[in-house]
């Protein structure tokens, strides 16, 4: 990834809290460091959500612009990661709602973690691949709920609000998703 500005390398040592404070004071290089630091997880999570890396990249790009505008309202800079994931989740759900009326997404091949290292890593990768497949088999409502909870770290009431369903539904969907994933992953016992 290209260095956005000279001097930004120094900023890599700083905490999220200091970076957010600088970014609120218009330091674009500090914001660039925030983007560099947190965009990989956001892009990966939203790609799972939308089943398209290209669409995910658009969503995450928009999310960062929204985040820049709302940055002065963020009380605690140390929680910027969770805050960014929440903004990106909201943008992604908007895209999903809109596309539900249009055409379905093209086939998307979720990336399967490659085994590059020793055998126990290969075994772990096999488990992750099995998990990814189990996740894909979930009914859409359960899948979204699971991603919001486990990838974005949203609380039950936040998820209920974002999906416009009762908290009891969120809880039920999470329980069903967890059970299905576990059963779907062979050899869990």
């Amino acid at each position, binding site marked *: 990834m290209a260095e956005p500005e000279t001097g930004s390398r120094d900023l890599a040592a700083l905490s999220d809290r200091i970076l957010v404070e*600088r970014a609120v004071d218009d330091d*674009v290089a500090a914001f660039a460091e925030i983007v560099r630091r947190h965009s990989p997880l956001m892009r990966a999570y939203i790609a799972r959500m939308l089943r398209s890396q290209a669409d995910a*990249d658009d969503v995450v790009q928009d999310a*960062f612009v929204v985040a820049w505008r709302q940055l002065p309202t963020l009380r605690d800079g140390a929680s910027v990661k969770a805050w960014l994931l929440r903004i990106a989740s909201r943008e992604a759900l908007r895209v999903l709602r809109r596309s539900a009326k249009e055409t379905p997404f093209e086939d998307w091949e979720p990336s399967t973690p490659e085994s590059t290292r020793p055998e126990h890593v290969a075994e772990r990768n096999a488990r992750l691949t099995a998990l990814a497949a189990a996740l894909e088999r979930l009914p859409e409502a359960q899948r979204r709920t699971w991603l919001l909870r486990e990838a974005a770290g949203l609380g039950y009431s936040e998820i209920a609000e974002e999906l416009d369903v009762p908290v009891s539904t969120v809880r039920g969907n999470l*329980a069903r998703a*967890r*059970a299905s994933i576990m059963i779907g*992953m062979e050899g869990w016992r």
Partner: protein
Amino acid sequence: MTASNASSDVLDCGRTIQELSEYLEAGRSPRDAEIEQCPECLNALESLSRVSDLSRDLFAADAASLPEPSAGWFGGILDQVAAELRSGRDLPVRHPDPRVRITVAEGAVRTLLRSAADELDGVFIGRTRIIGDVEELGAPVTIDVTASIAWDLDARAVADDVRRRIADVVARHTDLEVAAIDVTIEDVHAPQPRKDAS
């Protein structure tokens, strides 16, 4: 290690995975003594809760093996951001001719103060606040900054250096009437190679 196929969602003790998943989702509360004493159930609960850890591993693995975003993705964000800076209030600057009114944007002054203190080795300014009626010439203001310093530095000495730098820049570049400069060391970071001499 029995291979149970069709009924793999029912344990030998008769409980279903779904039941246990609901129990787990409820925070294992109210406590069900029967479940908590059944080795089979406990084993299944353990596996169920591991699904969360494994999920997080999956997203982390995804993130680590992600293709680079398209060219211009990063720049697209920063261009947009640079177009929406927050300039803040207007700070008046003295001029010998009373008919002339000159102001400098608060954001520009903040950047100036931050850059000046950033030049110190092992120091990065966080937030910069100019508190008081800055739009009124001569009104006393307080400058309040936070900073992150390299952990091998002496906080008191650094705070004094920062204060001096800021006082110097304020006096040279603005007409602010500074009553106090508060420096809060809010964070520490790992020492880095020296900043370029300037």
